[in-house]
């Protein structure tokens, strides 16, 4: 008697349908409206000593506290550390004489551009961190008043990745984008805040911003993934329990574990050449497969001894398959 079978190592997601499938778009992929822009985060290449020097050189600027300044035009600048860089958190003042400004989103962009152009002139160089992303936060009013209403809404949209929920704030992730429902006090309705990251290189070169490419992979083994990335010359590989990030050919890759399928989702940023990106993904797929083949080969040879089996022969066929014939004794 005999059977033939096909098997998938656990290093793969069982369903190969996941391969190259884009994550389904849900209604939370909001169309970002320019008028809803409320906050900008801009990473810089400043040293700690340069910030007080630069701020002192700005005209019409008042220091509010140790890290916060306000320009006479209503632009608020708050300095904070973000991913190891000093980052300017820019907002428009919402109260007092600035109530009358109706197009605050446009003013925020305009005044922020002017501010950084001034910094560039003072330091005689580009002061933004070219390798970084600028983060745009958009706010939308909602009619929701309770946490329960929102949790029901998220449940109905099959959103399960909700790392934080309190009476005044619910954070969640969809398609590798961060969102949060937030309200300042219990009397108010919640508003929705959406985060969009745009590589600075796209902004500086005036290109149309490229939304990060996101797709599912069928990779499940972290070690094999890291080995594959290393073999492809990836740099700055950083990993934790659920994430692997690296840089390759000027692109930033972020693999994050999908708890439902156990496979990694991939977000690629700073894509400048679409076909180069597609080729890289194909190469990584092939390399990951070869690494799994090697891993499986070593496991089988090691384990047959414990089962009183014997390797009768092994050969490599023309298609680079390894054929093992095992005598069951």
């Amino acid at each position: 008697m005999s059977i033939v079978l096909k098997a998938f190592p656990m290093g793969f997601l069982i369903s190969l349908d996941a391969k190259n499938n884009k994550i389904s778009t849900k209604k939370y992929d909001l169309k970002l409206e320019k008028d809803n822009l409320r906050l900008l985060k801009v990473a810089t290449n400043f040293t700690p000593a340069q910030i007080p020097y630069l701020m002192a050189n700005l005209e019409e600027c008042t220091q509010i506290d140790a890290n916060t300044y306000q320009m006479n035009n209503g632009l608020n600048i708050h300095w904070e550390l973000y991913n190891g860089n000093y980052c300017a958190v820019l907002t428009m003042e919402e109260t007092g004489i600035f109530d009358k400004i109706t197009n605050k989103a446009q003013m925020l962009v305009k005044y922020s551009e002017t501010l950084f152009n001034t910094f560039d002139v003072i330091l005689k160089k580009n002061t933004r961190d070219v390798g970084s992303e600028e983060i745009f936060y958009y706010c939308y009013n909602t009619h929701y008043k309770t946490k329960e209403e929102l949790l029901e809404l998220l449940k109905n949209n099959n959103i399960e990745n909700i790392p934080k929920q309190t009476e005044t704030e619910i954070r969640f992730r969809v398609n590798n984008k961060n969102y949060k429902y937030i309200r300042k006090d219990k009397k108010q309705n919640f508003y929705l805040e959406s985060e969009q990251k745009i590589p600075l290189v796209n902004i500086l070169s005036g290109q149309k911003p490229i939304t990060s490419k996101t797709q599912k992979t069928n990779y499940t083994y972290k070690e094999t993934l890291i080995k594959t990335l290393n073999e492809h010359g990836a740099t700055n590989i950083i990993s934790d329990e659920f994430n692997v990030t690296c840089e390759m050919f000027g692109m930033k890759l972020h693999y994050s574990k999908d708890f439902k399928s156990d496979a990694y989702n991939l977000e690629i940023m700073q894509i400048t050449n679409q076909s180069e990106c597609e080729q890289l993904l194909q190469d990584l797929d092939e390399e990951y497969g070869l690494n799994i083949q090697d891993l499986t080969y070593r496991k089988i040879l090691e384990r047959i001894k414990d089962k009183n089996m014997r390797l009768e022969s092994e050969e490599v066929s023309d298609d680079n398959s390894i054929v093992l014939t095992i005598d069951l004794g």
Partner: protein
Amino acid sequence: MGKLKIKLLPDGTIEMETKGIKGKKCLDYAKVLEQLADAKAEKIDKTDEYYQDSYLELYESQHLSDN
């Protein structure tokens, strides 16, 4: 005793064929492969030989009980 012919493909997937294993026992080797390779058998096809042997087994057991 029989043999297992295991093919490790470059895309990481595995194919296996059993040879010369008597009875339905050959199905047990799907489990063995899963243990050897940390894998999950996704598709098992019985060959013509499997059905031929099953028919013979059935015929033989029926023949014995008839007698």
